[in-house]
């Protein structure tokens, strides 16, 4: 039972390779042209549209500003210090939008 299943799956795997070999020989000659068309007519324009959408959204001040500091006890957890620097800042710490347990650092005032 298990060996029959094994043979069926193994044949499925090796025929994948043989079938892709046949693609190189018989009718299917230009499979790459279809995928290249999809790349330049669908996929990359889709990426470009999303890029435009991000660019247009950059002006949204509310979305890009720091949240107000409220000393919730489940935020800014420091049960053990981070193993770098002074141990108080996360790996991608950004002083503009990441407060320390005591509040935002007052480097410069424009958030």
């Amino acid at each position, binding site marked *: 039972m298990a060996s029959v299943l094994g043979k069926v799956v193994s044949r499925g*795997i090796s025929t994948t390779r043989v079938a892709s070999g046949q693609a*190189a020989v018989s009718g299917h000659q230009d*499979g*790459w042209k279809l995928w290249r068309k999809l790349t330049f007519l669908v*996929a990359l324009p*889709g990426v470009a549209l999303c890029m435009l959408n991000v660019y247009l959204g950059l002006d949204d001040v509310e979305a890009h500003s720091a*949240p107000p500091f*409220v000393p919730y006890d489940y935020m800014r*957890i420091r049960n053990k210090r981070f193993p770098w620097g002074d141990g108080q800042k996360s790996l991608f710490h950004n002083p503009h939008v990441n407060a320390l347990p005591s509040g935002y650092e007052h480097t410069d005032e424009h958030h």
Partner: protein
Amino acid sequence: MSNFMNHPYHLVDKSPWPLLSAFSVMSLVTGLAKWFHTFNVSLVAFSLFATTLIMIQWWRDVVREGTYQGLHTIQVGVGLRWGMILFITSEVLFFMSFFWAFFHSSLAPAVELGSSWPPAGIKPFNPFQIPLLNTAILLASGVTVTWSHHALMQNNYTQGLQGLVATVFLGLYFTSLQALEYYEAPFSIADAVYGSTFFVATGFHGLHVIIGTAFLLVCLIRHMFNHFSSTHHFGFEAAAWYWHFVDVVWLFLFISIYWWGN
């Protein structure tokens, strides 16, 4: 040493890499624990360096055995395919644990968090800004790697190269955008269980994107050295499988953590 054998299997030559890699990854995880407890980074740094060198040499040997010595018969290929499938399956289960953790905390948010998800005080990302762009990028990279694969199968060197270059570029673009997002995030890994689940899940995903991009880059270089034939290019197929897996994990991340979790 003659390649003669009257069977289709590959009885590998003696190699130091299996034992050495076991030692180096053991010292890597030990070094990680040592770093977290004693704040001394030497062991983990050295072990990372050693592990990298050993991986390069082991895989270099596999390429030599397959491409230059002709030892990868069809039956050997079946074994390699099973190996890659099982490995990717184990990675799927690895990610499932992080999705479990995410849903455990987010489906019934604790009263201490304000009984809401995201928790009070957390400002999540707008999923339809950079996360959506990242989705488009990974989907596009799935199309470009397929373009490259079909070109390879039709023996078209140039088109195969172009598709692969496009795929690697998209992978690097994704990684840079995620790094930017990580820096711009108004919450950190230490900000409630929201931060923990977000950064562990997306962080491991990002690591897999970097690994997948490196795998594709190796394929790109091998393609330039003419290692691939139209019928025999399993290294490329394995890289493509891995890349599609990375793409699918992102789709789940986008839908559950970025979109539903907003």
